[in-house]
């Protein structure tokens, strides 16, 4: 009976679902603890065995976080940085990726290695000179140091899209060239649609990176109204950790995670269900 491919498929699916569920439990375990801790009374946090469903359930930590921390500005500024960088940066990165993977020009490989090389020096070593540079322009306590460099693209994204594009047949692009299609036209009509799933996947990661960026904002921003989300939360954590108020810290972390999860849920249909958009795969 196992010779029937449909049945085989189905048994496989069931097995996979069971395994995935088991894995999901271990992935969720810590988060369940995180949420449950955020709802617990202080003295029940370190009990053995751990108390999974808090009794009593206290929601007030969430209200407390909201009152104690200028979270709203944090959300706003992080969103401004993330949106502007990702929208413009994705455009510039995908153009460069197209050039690096499908176009011919001298010193292509060397130039690419050179760009990749800039990621290899730890940030700690360039942080101070970079601060000096931006402070000379007068950009300290503005969002510009966080936004502007990102507008010119992201080397990781260029690399990823370049790798992804190797799977897109060069023949189609060559054909378009012969047809007299402009290079920007090729990018816009052929390349861009075919790398949409890759872009969606990378955007999700990039958004997360910007959202969780901590050191940059801590160095460049000063006034509370210009702060992004992570330094705001860190300022708050550092104090409450010394007070062992883990409920409050966990509540703050849960709140700060929400937007990223939302973005993920929104984007995932693009990198999963956008199969064969242009029909060019066949």
């Amino acid at each position, binding site marked *: 009976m196992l010779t029937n491919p449909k049945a085989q498929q189905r048994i496989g699916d069931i097995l996979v679902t069971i395994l995935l569920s088991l894995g999901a439990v271990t992935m969720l375990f810590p988060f369940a603890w995180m949420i449950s801790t955020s709802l617990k009374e202080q003295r029940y946090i*370190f009990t053995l065995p751990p108390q999974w469903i808090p009794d009593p359930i206290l929601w007030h930590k969430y209200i407390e976080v909201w009152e104690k921390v200028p979270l709203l500005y944090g959300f706003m500024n992080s969103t401004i940085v993330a949106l502007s960088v990702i929208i413009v940066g994705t455009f510039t990165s995908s153009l460069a990726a197209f050039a690096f993977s499908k176009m011919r020009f001298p010193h292509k490989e060397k130039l690419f290695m050179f760009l990749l090389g800039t990621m290899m020096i730890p940030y700690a070593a360039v*942080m101070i000179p970079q*601060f000096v540079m931006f*402070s000379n322009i007068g950009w300290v306590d503005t969002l510009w140091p966080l936004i502007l460099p990102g507008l010119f693209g992201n080397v990781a994204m260029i690399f990823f899209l370049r790798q992804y594009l190797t799977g897109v047949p060069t023949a189609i692009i060559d054909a378009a060239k012969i047809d007299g299609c402009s290079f920007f036209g090729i990018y816009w009509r052929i390349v861009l649609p075919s790398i949409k799933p890759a872009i969606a996947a990378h955007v999700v990661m990039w958004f997360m990176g910007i959202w969780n960026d901590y*050191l940059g904002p801590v*160095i460049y921003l000063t006034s509370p109204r210009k702060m992004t989300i992570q330094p705001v939360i*860190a300022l708050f954590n*550092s*104090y409450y950790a010394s*007070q062992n108020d883990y409920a409050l810290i966990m509540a703050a972390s849960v709140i700060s995670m929400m937007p990223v999860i939302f973005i993920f849920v929104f984007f995932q249909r693009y990198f999963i269900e956008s199969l064969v958009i242009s029909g060019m795969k066949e």
Partner: protein
Amino acid sequence: MRKVSNRLLILVSCILLVLVTITPALAQNPITITFMGHGHPEEHEIFTRLIEKYEERYPHVTVNYINVPPAEYMIRLQAMVAGNQTPDVFYLPAGDLMPWADSGLLADLTELVANTDLFDEANIWPEALARYRYDGNMVGQGPLWALPKDVGPWALAYNADLFKEAGVPLPDPDVPWTWDEFLENARKLTRGSGNDRKWGAAFYTLEAAVWANGADWLDETKTRVTVDDSKFIEALQWVADLRLVHQVTPTREEEQSMGGYSRFINGQIAMFPMGPWDQPAFWRLPFEWDLMPWPVSPNTGKNATWIGSMGFAVSSRTKNLQEAFNLAAFLALDREGQQLNYELGMAVPNLIDMAETGFLNMDKPPANRKEFLRIITDYGRRPINEYTYDNEWIDAFWQGVDAVYAGRKTAAEFCKEIQPEMQSLLDRAIARQEQQRQRNR
């Protein structure tokens, strides 16, 4: 007629109001002072209030207060110095004083303190100021480079309920125990098992033991590492044996699983060291607690502990030295701020008269608050790293000493082994100090 006089009155008062608000502004050009620190929310609130008060008193000055998460504070400060944006007033850890003072980035406050009418120098704990003096060679003497934000005596607290349960008489606030009495009582206080397990003491502060025994990490010139001294070794072994032999403190694994702080809070530890900043949390404890004097070494009959501190430094690059100094003085020594500080249980006042009256007479635990003051005036010392250019030599010690606490090495073996490594790191720090000082001349 009546109407006219009314109008006139309004007009005159308007003009007066305008004049009142404008005059000081006309007299002095408006200026802005930047102040950077890493205050936690309550400290932030107090400072905000003090800054408002300061701005009322000096209406031409606006203060820009930057609050940075503590872990990244020094990085941010270094970035700002490099970017030529050094804050006018900023937190400076006492342990970092030497390189900062040598670099010429700090304003010498000696003259300003002598001439100010904001406070009386004689009313500040001499020790609180002394640690911010540095003559280019030794800390504790010479020009003054910062004002103390606080003075933090590291005291020994005890859980009175546990003492009563174990039938141990409460410690006399005036007569310190000897080490032997400490051990004997700690043994009696160590009882029970499982969740009911109680320990006599948390891990014993090593500085308190070493100094009390007449030893130290460095010699008097602060150039030679003296951890191989027999009195040092004896003190270290005594501390390790409290855990390894006598088992009156949690084991190393237990300590790593749940720190002494949490265990003390849970009522599992009878004697635990604390700083004044622990008071607000301890006020919420369901048991009775108080301070006891640190035990004395049987060899010397003396006790010792450390006093922590953070300073307010003024940048030498400031364009408004007097105003910046005044702000530092306000934050460090203003009576209202100091009072708020101790009432909230954050610190011991820097002002002697306030510490000896208001602070001492507060009706909150510890009842034996004068132990805090006794540490400041009598047996407290500066942490050892304040005498050297960097901490690498002492970090090597702290990284390795775990072997003694775990029982893998004896104190004698460890100290003999680590001394040369510490010495070479210290020599490196001294060489750097020499180099930088010469460059600066």
